[in-house]
């Protein structure tokens, strides 16, 4: 990675983190890291072959990550944050595919989970040290697996028969795919200037108290080596330009607006003009929200614009379609026994397809060819004609689905579970958005409601899927518009979250537009944060509920924001106010 600095950044003496942390792979020849992992996996299996409790499967995953982060605020850039790290995960299974050490120990509480050990891998390609790091972690993991399997066998014998009697792990074909990789070659200097210039635009918006503009590049080379014979080396690049602005309303509510563009290559970066537009957009939204009225809790018809609808589906359907939730007896299992049943209106279809690289011009975050268990990604139909078809699967089988469909994903440091990739929602008979909006107003009038709501954009959300708690969801909109039935202009409002329960909400979708929007972001769950995308048309929902959003209570800043540079004529001296 090439790093130079602009004249203004040259005041900082050194930006050479990458100089000593050069990319560690050979694209078309020997790869010391890959070869060392293969050697250790093979050696471990053979050396433990005669152990009393030998492992039946071992997998090592490594992410070799280079990142560059550039940030500017109010026209001034921070020092580029450049890093290189290697993160390793070792998974060892003892027992058998039917029952192994990863099996859930029932009634053991929240804190029972297989122990995991970090792998302290060197940044440089020293085979001896890589092997030593892999060996220590594999040995620690193996011994912990043996210890846990003793408890698993007893727990299985002591407890009642499991509701889902499927195996703990499934076989998967070996994949050998060692890809050429080419590290991102990035010169930060021009971008530092773009960030400086665009971030300075916030100075023209006094209602925005704090803000920044950021460019983050993450360049991952991933290695997967398993005892199945799988050897994968592939690359994933995620580049994000983001704009954040925040303020405090007079009632103490902290208001934040975030806009971003994700791309998989430098070619997809926005222009300086586009970043400036993002800044202006965020600043205008923050300013408008600061004086927008707060909405009381309300139930009524609403439209979820495309990006909001995409997050909505990700939360209320996507997470409930993840395979491991059908097996875990602590889970609500909303959908477990509903395969083949109509749970959405017949015009709704949903599938998840990590093999999709982009959607129109937009690169998709949830794209990958192999999941983190070394299984080829597959397109998985979830809903067809409103009927539930099946689940997203990792290598943990469930009753009725014995094999992975390539959705076992994780953040380094966690065990893989079934996760979403690119969730695609489509609808038959979509109408132009304006027509959908008219349908909303008609419903408001028909139901004699004072207004309808349009959820324009959503910052994120969460869903509760366990049995011990209400099975519900909450989605946090950024911008919500109140739509009056009497023709008054739409009114920006704030201070509400969208809430509900899944099965009821599924049935309330009554219409859709004919155009889709894409949400790209990160999703956090049991196996950590993974990149995802969701695509959906605008949706008309006959009834949605909003509740008041959690509010902070600090007064807005006591003083006006500093304006132009005013050098004081004398020093400030206390005690004489």
């Amino acid at each position, binding site marked *: 990675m090439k790093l130079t600095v602009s004249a203004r950044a040259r*005041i900082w003496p050194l930006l050479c*983190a990458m100089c000593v942390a050069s990319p560690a792979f050979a694209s078309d020849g020997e790869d010391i890291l890959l070869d060392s992992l293969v050697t250790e996996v093979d050696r471990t299996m053979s050396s433990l072959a005669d152990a009393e409790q030998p492992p039946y499967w071992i997998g090592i995953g490594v992410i070799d990550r280079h990142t560059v982060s550039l940030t500017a605020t109010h026209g001034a*850039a921070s020092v580029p944050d450049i890093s290189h790290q290697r993160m390793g995960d070792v998974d060892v299974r003892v027992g058998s595919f039917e029952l192994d050490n990863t099996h859930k120990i029932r009634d053991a509480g929240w804190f029972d989970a297989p122990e995991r050990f970090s792998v302290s891998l060197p*940044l440089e390609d020293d085979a001896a040290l890589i092997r030593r790091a892999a060996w220590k972690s594999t040995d620690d993991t193996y011994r912990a697996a043996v210890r846990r399997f003793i408890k698993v066998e007893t727990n299985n014998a002591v407890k009642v028969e499991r509701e889902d009697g499927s195996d703990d792990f499934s076989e998967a074909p070996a994949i050998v795919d060692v890809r050429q990789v080419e590290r991102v070659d990035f010169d930060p200097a021009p971008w530092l200037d773009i960030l400086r210039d665009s971030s300075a635009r916030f100075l023209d918006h006094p209602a925005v108290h704090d803000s920044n503009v950021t460019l983050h590049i993450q360049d991952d080379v991933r290695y997967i080596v398993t005892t199945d014979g799988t050897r994968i080396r592939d690359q994933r690049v995620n580049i994000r330009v983001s704009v954040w602005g925040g303020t405090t309303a007079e009632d103490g509510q902290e208001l934040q607006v975030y806009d971003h563009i994700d791309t998989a290559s430098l070619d997809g970066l926005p222009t300086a003009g586009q970043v400036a537009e993002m800044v202006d957009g965020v600043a205008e939204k923050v300013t408008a929200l600061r004086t927008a009225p707060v909405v009381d809790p309300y139930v009524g018809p609403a439209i979820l614009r495309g990006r909001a609808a995409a997050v909505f589906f990700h939360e209320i359907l996507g997470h409930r379609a993840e395979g491991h939730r059908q097996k875990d007896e602590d889970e609500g299992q909303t959908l477990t026994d509903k395969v083949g049943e109509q749970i959405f209106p017949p015009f709704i279809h949903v599938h998840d397809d990590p093999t999709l690289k982009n959607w129109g011009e937009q690169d998709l975050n949830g794209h990958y060819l192999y999941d983190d268990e070394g299984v080829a990604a597959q397109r998985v139909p979830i809903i067809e004609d409103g009927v539930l078809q099946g689940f997203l699967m990792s290598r943990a089988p469930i009753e009725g689905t014995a094999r992975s469909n390539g959705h076992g994903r994780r953040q380094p440091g966690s065990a893989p579970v079934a996760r979403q990739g690119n969730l695609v929602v489509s609808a038959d008979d979509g109408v132009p958005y304006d027509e959908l909006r008219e349908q909303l107003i008609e419903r408001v009038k028909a139901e004699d409601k004072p207004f309808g709501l349009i959820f324009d954009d959503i910052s994120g959300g969460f869903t509760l899927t366990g049995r011990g708690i209400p099975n519900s969801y909450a989605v946090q909109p950024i911008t919500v518009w109140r739509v009056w039935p009497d023709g008054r202009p739409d009114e920006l409002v704030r201070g509400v979250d969208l809430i509900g329960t899944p099965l009821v909400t599924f049935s309330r979708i009554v219409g859709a537009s004919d155009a889709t929007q894409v949400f790209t972001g990160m999703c956090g769950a049991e196996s950590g944060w993974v990149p995802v995308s969701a695509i959906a048309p605008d949706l008309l929902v006959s009834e949605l509920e909003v509740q008041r959003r959690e509010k902070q209570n600090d007064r807005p800043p006591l003083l006006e924001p500093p304006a132009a540079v005013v050098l004081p004529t004398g020093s400030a001296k206390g005690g004489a106010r």
Partner: protein
Amino acid sequence: MMRLLSFGLLLGSVALSPAQAAPPTGVQAPALSPADAAMLAAGEAELLRAMQMEIPGQAAPYYVAYEFLDGQVATAHADSGVLLSFDDNPYRNVRVEVRVGDYQLDNSRFEGGFGVREGVAMKGLPADPSTIAFRRELWLATDYAYKGAAEQLSGKLSAREGRPEDDHPVPSFEERQGLTTAPVPMPSLDSAATLNRVRELSKRVGDLPGLENAEAIGRDWVGRRVLITSEGTRAWIPTGFSVVRVEGVVRTPDGRRLRDCRWWVARTPEELPPLDEMVAEVEQMAATLEAAINAPIEQDYLGPVLFEAPAAVELFRQLLLPEVSGSPPVEMAPDPYAPADSRPAPTARVGRRLLPEGWTVVDDPTRAEGTAGAYTRDFEGVEASRVSLVENGVLKDILMSRVPRSNTHGSTGHGRGLGPDPREAMPGAITVSPARSMSDNKLRKRALNLARQADLDYVLVVKRIEPPALAEDFEVAFTGDGPLAGLTRPLEVVRLYRDGHEEPVQPGMSFLGVDRRVLRDIAAAGGVADMVGVLDAPAGPRRHSLGAVGGLPASWSVPSVVVTELELRAGGGGQPRAIPAPGE
């Protein structure tokens, strides 16, 4: 007793420290860099505005301080000569402190409970020299700190409500005149040297049998602290330190995990020992570790213990620091479930016997040139001074920041603290001197005599104790638990027999029930010892969570000592690896 595992060689919090002497007032000031000019302009402008802040009906700020911190930190971590991580980053932050009320009674030193803010805020600043961007950050941080200070003061007043009035109330903060020092230019840092040093030292642990770790971690930090206060202070204080720590870990065939470490702390990279000296020490550590693999396992031990000089530093600094630091305990919100008298235990009691008769302890950062603990001004801008702490074994004086206490004078120039933490009194450069010094030979004989009286064939000699920064475990006591160790684990222990020969024992032992009273049981001491650099923090739990390269630099000179009786527990067992090491 609950033991929680923490990893020894972790990157610690970036601590802030003074180091080199600042040019005295009146020296021709060098031209300001654009960044310096922007910092000053932003600080001056926002300070003026900050003093006008007011919440109706609430106390106004009477003191505002902006502490700009900028510089460069390089941190490298290697194993067997191969790089594990390397960071080389310039930084620029500001610590904003707002005090409301007045010098007699303000918001500070009160802990209101979870979620209650205080009058301090930290913010990162951009690298570009932009006055307006700096001012924006100062504006928000000052607002946050003022609101926190107002709430903190109300908590303090609420906690005091109904208590009998103190006949001799102690002021919250010492009033001082502002001061001005000449600007200090930004020092340069050769981060390649940081990296090479760490690579080389980790390589020299060598290829020991059963080797699991041969790690070295180093941090070089150069920078400045620019203090701008509403009292009129405009002080430029150099800051930084250099630290190197090396760790070797081997596993014996029966599964025991043996560990040894070496470390160096200096004020600047140039003041670290020459690389060949450090290499020689690491090679000696490796040889010791190798010898320990086949050494006997010491069982529980009760008897005299000889602490050689490097170990004696840890013995003294871990036990003595809370006794000589004069910062009063932080006031707490009343606990309705606590016994009626829930006042914190008094600390640093002048007049208490700490050491045997004739012993002295002096702290003087101004006469410690070339050592880690040397400095001329503390973090509050106060000139450091010599303090005679212990005379004839009795505590006579204590180290002070600008936070007064009832029975002593103002600041001694020892106010320092980590990050946003309060500035508290902590040692700079301490010299411990015994009443009488013996030669090493005589000291050993004295230790053996004590062993004979205890019916032992040998005496244990502790050569090194792990610094808290490298401790892999720590203890938390609950009611009903047994005694705590009171001192971190010895790393290197040998048996000294009557015929004078030494026999190493396997590392892994732990002390039992050590407290400050042990220092009064010192039976004899050796000669004057060299200053040893350490990284430390003010008394309190932060001392045990600094990480390998965090903390504030200090120096201690402590002679070897013999303690009449101590208890050490045998080390626990281990588990052999199930998988042979690569290459075995």
